[in-house]
Protein backbone atom coordinates (compact mmCIF):
# COMPACT_ATOMS: atom_id res chain seq x y z
CA UNK A 1 0.00 0.00 0.00
CA UNK A 2 2.79 2.43 0.98
CA UNK A 3 4.89 1.53 -2.05
CA UNK A 4 1.84 1.82 -4.33
CA UNK A 5 1.05 5.29 -2.96
CA UNK A 6 4.67 6.43 -3.30
CA UNK A 7 4.73 5.27 -6.93
CA UNK A 8 1.61 7.41 -7.52
CA UNK A 9 3.32 10.30 -5.76
CA UNK A 10 6.19 9.99 -8.22
CA UNK A 11 3.80 11.32 -10.88
CA UNK A 12 4.39 14.75 -9.34
CA UNK A 13 8.10 14.61 -10.17
CA UNK A 14 9.60 15.80 -13.45
CA UNK A 15 9.27 13.20 -16.18
CA UNK A 16 12.99 12.85 -16.91
CA UNK A 17 13.77 12.11 -13.25
CA UNK A 18 10.88 9.66 -13.04
CA UNK A 19 11.86 7.84 -16.22
CA UNK A 20 15.53 7.58 -15.30
CA UNK A 21 15.31 6.92 -11.55
CA UNK A 22 11.64 6.24 -10.70
CA UNK A 23 12.10 2.51 -10.09
CA UNK A 24 15.16 3.10 -7.91
CA UNK A 25 13.41 5.86 -5.96
CA UNK A 26 10.52 3.51 -5.21
CA UNK A 27 13.00 0.78 -4.19
CA UNK A 28 14.90 3.16 -1.90
CA UNK A 29 11.62 4.33 -0.38
CA UNK A 30 10.51 0.75 0.32
CA UNK A 31 13.87 -0.09 1.96
CA UNK A 32 13.71 3.10 3.99
CA UNK A 33 10.26 2.14 5.28
CA UNK A 34 11.71 -1.10 6.62
CA UNK A 35 14.71 0.57 8.23
CA UNK A 36 13.55 4.02 9.37
CA UNK A 37 9.88 3.67 10.26
CA UNK A 38 6.78 4.84 8.43
CA UNK A 39 6.21 8.23 10.05
CA UNK A 40 9.75 9.50 9.48
CA UNK A 41 9.92 8.27 5.90
CA UNK A 42 6.53 9.68 4.93
CA UNK A 43 7.38 13.00 6.58
CA UNK A 44 10.54 13.14 4.49
CA UNK A 45 8.62 12.14 1.32
CA UNK A 46 6.01 14.86 1.93
CA UNK A 47 8.77 17.42 2.40
CA UNK A 48 10.41 16.33 -0.84
CA UNK A 49 7.18 16.88 -2.76
CA UNK A 50 7.35 20.53 -1.69
CA UNK A 51 11.11 21.00 -2.03
CA UNK A 52 11.93 18.80 -5.03
CA UNK A 53 8.81 17.79 -7.01
CA UNK A 54 6.94 21.07 -7.27
CA UNK A 55 9.99 23.30 -7.94
CA UNK A 56 11.02 20.77 -10.60
CA UNK A 57 7.64 21.22 -12.30
CA UNK A 58 7.87 24.99 -12.72
CA UNK A 59 7.62 24.62 -16.49
CA UNK A 60 4.83 22.01 -16.41
CA UNK A 61 1.42 23.76 -16.26
CA UNK A 62 -0.41 20.46 -15.62
CA UNK A 63 1.16 20.33 -12.16
CA UNK A 64 1.86 23.97 -11.45
CA UNK A 65 -1.64 25.35 -12.13
CA UNK A 66 -3.52 22.78 -9.98
CA UNK A 67 -0.92 23.21 -7.20
CA UNK A 68 -1.40 26.98 -7.19
CA UNK A 69 -5.16 26.51 -7.32
CA UNK A 70 -5.01 24.09 -4.38
CA UNK A 71 -2.86 26.43 -2.29
CA UNK A 72 -4.96 29.52 -3.03
CA UNK A 73 -8.26 27.75 -2.35
CA UNK A 74 -6.93 26.34 0.93
CA UNK A 75 -5.82 29.84 1.94
CA UNK A 76 -9.08 31.53 0.96
CA UNK A 77 -11.31 28.85 2.49
CA UNK A 78 -9.36 28.95 5.76
CA UNK A 79 -9.60 32.74 5.87
CA UNK A 80 -13.35 32.59 5.11
CA UNK A 81 -13.99 30.12 7.91
CA UNK A 82 -11.93 32.16 10.34
CA UNK A 83 -13.62 35.44 9.35
CA UNK A 84 -17.06 33.81 9.35
CA UNK A 85 -16.52 32.57 12.89
CA UNK A 86 -15.51 36.06 14.03
CA UNK A 87 -18.31 37.84 12.14
CA UNK A 88 -20.82 35.69 13.98
CA UNK A 89 -20.09 37.82 17.05
CA UNK A 90 -18.48 35.11 19.03
CA UNK A 91 -15.53 32.88 18.33
CA UNK A 92 -17.12 29.58 17.50
CA UNK A 93 -14.82 27.58 15.29
CA UNK A 94 -16.28 24.55 13.60
CA UNK A 95 -14.81 21.25 14.79
CA UNK A 96 -11.30 20.78 13.40
CA UNK A 97 -12.23 17.77 11.24
CA UNK A 98 -15.15 19.64 9.65
CA UNK A 99 -12.91 22.62 9.02
CA UNK A 100 -10.04 20.59 7.57
CA UNK A 101 -12.43 18.41 5.56
CA UNK A 102 -14.12 21.43 4.01
CA UNK A 103 -10.82 23.12 3.13
CA UNK A 104 -9.31 19.95 1.64
CA UNK A 105 -12.47 19.09 -0.28
CA UNK A 106 -12.81 22.58 -1.78
CA UNK A 107 -9.09 22.77 -2.58
CA UNK A 108 -9.06 19.34 -4.25
CA UNK A 109 -12.17 20.25 -6.23
CA UNK A 110 -10.63 23.47 -7.51
CA UNK A 111 -7.31 21.77 -8.22
CA UNK A 112 -9.15 19.09 -10.25
CA UNK A 113 -11.00 21.73 -12.25
CA UNK A 114 -7.71 23.55 -12.84
CA UNK A 115 -6.11 20.28 -14.01
CA UNK A 116 -8.96 19.52 -16.43
CA UNK A 117 -8.87 23.06 -17.84
CA UNK A 118 -5.08 22.99 -18.21
CA UNK A 119 -5.17 19.61 -19.96
CA UNK A 120 -8.01 20.78 -22.21
CA UNK A 121 -6.14 23.96 -23.09
CA UNK A 122 -2.98 21.97 -23.87
CA UNK A 123 -4.87 19.66 -26.27
CA UNK A 124 -6.95 22.27 -28.07
CA UNK A 125 -5.10 23.76 -30.97
CA UNK A 126 -7.94 26.20 -31.65
CA UNK A 127 -7.53 28.02 -28.34
CA UNK A 128 -4.48 30.23 -28.27
CA UNK A 129 -4.47 32.74 -25.48
CA UNK A 130 -2.03 35.62 -25.84
CA UNK A 131 0.99 35.02 -23.60
CA UNK A 132 2.07 38.68 -23.31
Amino acid at each position, binding site marked *: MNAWFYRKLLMLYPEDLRT*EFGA*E*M*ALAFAEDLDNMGHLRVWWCAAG*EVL*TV*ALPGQRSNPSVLVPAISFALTALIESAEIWLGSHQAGHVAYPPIFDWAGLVIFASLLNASVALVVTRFYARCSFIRLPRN
Partner: protein
Amino acid sequence: MEPDSPLAPAAFLILFALAGGDKHGYAIMQEARKLSDHTFQIGPATLYTTIQRLLDADRIREVPGPEHGDSRRKYYRLTSAGKSALHVELARMESMVKKSKAMRLRLAESS
Protein backbone atom coordinates in the same frame (compact mmCIF):
# COMPACT_ATOMS: atom_id res chain seq x y z
CA MET B 1 27.38 23.22 -11.63
CA GLU B 2 30.22 25.74 -11.52
CA PRO B 3 33.56 23.93 -11.21
CA ASP B 4 34.81 25.83 -8.13
CA SER B 5 31.58 26.94 -6.51
CA PRO B 6 30.81 25.46 -3.06
CA LEU B 7 28.95 22.16 -3.24
CA ALA B 8 25.37 21.87 -2.02
CA PRO B 9 25.14 19.73 1.15
CA ALA B 10 23.51 16.79 -0.67
CA ALA B 11 26.12 16.84 -3.47
CA PHE B 12 28.96 17.03 -0.94
CA LEU B 13 27.61 14.11 1.10
CA ILE B 14 27.08 11.97 -2.01
CA LEU B 15 30.62 12.63 -3.27
CA PHE B 16 31.96 11.97 0.24
CA ALA B 17 30.00 8.70 0.44
CA LEU B 18 31.35 7.59 -2.94
CA ALA B 19 34.92 8.41 -1.93
CA GLY B 20 34.82 5.17 0.05
CA GLY B 21 34.05 3.09 -3.04
CA ASP B 22 31.30 2.32 -5.55
CA LYS B 23 27.80 2.30 -4.09
CA HIS B 24 24.19 2.01 -5.18
CA GLY B 25 21.62 4.71 -4.42
CA TYR B 26 20.28 3.40 -1.14
CA ALA B 27 23.78 2.68 0.21
CA ILE B 28 24.75 6.27 -0.69
CA MET B 29 21.66 7.52 1.15
CA GLN B 30 22.52 5.56 4.30
CA GLU B 31 26.17 6.61 4.19
CA ALA B 32 25.22 10.27 3.68
CA ARG B 33 22.94 10.14 6.72
CA LYS B 34 25.69 8.52 8.79
CA LEU B 35 28.24 11.12 7.65
CA SER B 36 25.94 13.95 8.71
CA ASP B 37 25.18 12.25 12.06
CA HIS B 38 21.59 11.96 10.85
CA THR B 39 21.16 15.74 10.87
CA PHE B 40 20.67 15.92 7.10
CA GLN B 41 17.46 14.20 6.03
CA ILE B 42 18.19 12.96 2.56
CA GLY B 43 15.28 11.15 0.91
CA PRO B 44 15.03 9.32 -2.43
CA ALA B 45 14.01 12.43 -4.40
CA THR B 46 16.83 14.61 -3.07
CA LEU B 47 19.26 11.76 -3.61
CA TYR B 48 18.36 11.02 -7.22
CA THR B 49 17.91 14.67 -8.24
CA THR B 50 21.43 15.30 -6.97
CA ILE B 51 22.76 12.12 -8.59
CA GLN B 52 21.24 13.31 -11.88
CA ARG B 53 23.03 16.67 -11.55
CA LEU B 54 26.32 15.01 -10.62
CA LEU B 55 26.05 12.68 -13.62
CA ASP B 56 25.35 15.66 -15.91
CA ALA B 57 28.35 17.49 -14.45
CA ASP B 58 30.49 14.36 -14.99
CA ARG B 59 31.40 14.19 -11.31
CA ILE B 60 30.13 10.64 -10.94
CA ARG B 61 29.42 7.90 -13.43
CA GLU B 62 27.39 4.75 -13.54
CA VAL B 63 29.36 1.51 -13.29
CA PRO B 64 28.35 -2.15 -13.48
CA GLY B 65 27.41 -3.63 -10.11
CA PRO B 66 28.85 -6.77 -8.53
CA GLU B 67 28.24 -9.97 -10.42
CA HIS B 68 25.62 -11.36 -8.04
CA GLY B 69 24.20 -8.00 -7.01
CA ASP B 70 20.61 -6.81 -7.31
CA SER B 71 20.02 -6.12 -11.02
CA ARG B 72 17.47 -3.40 -10.19
CA ARG B 73 20.17 -1.22 -8.69
CA LYS B 74 22.56 1.13 -10.43
CA TYR B 75 26.02 1.63 -8.99
CA TYR B 76 27.92 4.90 -9.06
CA ARG B 77 31.60 5.85 -8.91
CA LEU B 78 33.48 9.11 -8.43
CA THR B 79 35.16 10.45 -11.57
CA SER B 80 38.38 12.44 -11.49
CA ALA B 81 36.29 15.63 -11.76
CA GLY B 82 34.28 14.44 -8.76
CA LYS B 83 37.43 13.70 -6.75
CA SER B 84 38.77 17.12 -7.61
CA ALA B 85 35.49 18.84 -6.58
CA LEU B 86 35.49 16.91 -3.29
CA HIS B 87 39.14 17.84 -2.70
CA VAL B 88 38.40 21.55 -3.27
CA GLU B 89 35.37 21.39 -0.95
CA LEU B 90 37.32 19.63 1.81
CA ALA B 91 40.10 22.24 1.52
CA ARG B 92 37.48 24.98 1.77
CA MET B 93 36.01 23.35 4.89
CA GLU B 94 39.44 22.88 6.51
CA SER B 95 40.19 26.53 5.93
CA MET B 96 36.84 27.45 7.48
CA VAL B 97 37.55 25.26 10.52
CA LYS B 98 40.95 26.98 11.04
CA LYS B 99 39.28 30.39 10.83
CA SER B 100 36.50 29.36 13.19
CA LYS B 101 39.06 28.10 15.75
CA ALA B 102 40.85 31.45 15.60
CA MET B 103 37.53 33.23 15.99
CA ARG B 104 36.58 31.08 18.95
CA LEU B 105 39.88 31.95 20.67
CA ARG B 106 39.33 35.66 20.00
CA LEU B 107 35.82 35.48 21.40
CA ALA B 108 37.05 33.63 24.49
CA GLU B 109 39.76 36.28 25.07
CA SER B 110 37.34 39.17 24.70
CA SER B 111 34.77 37.76 27.15
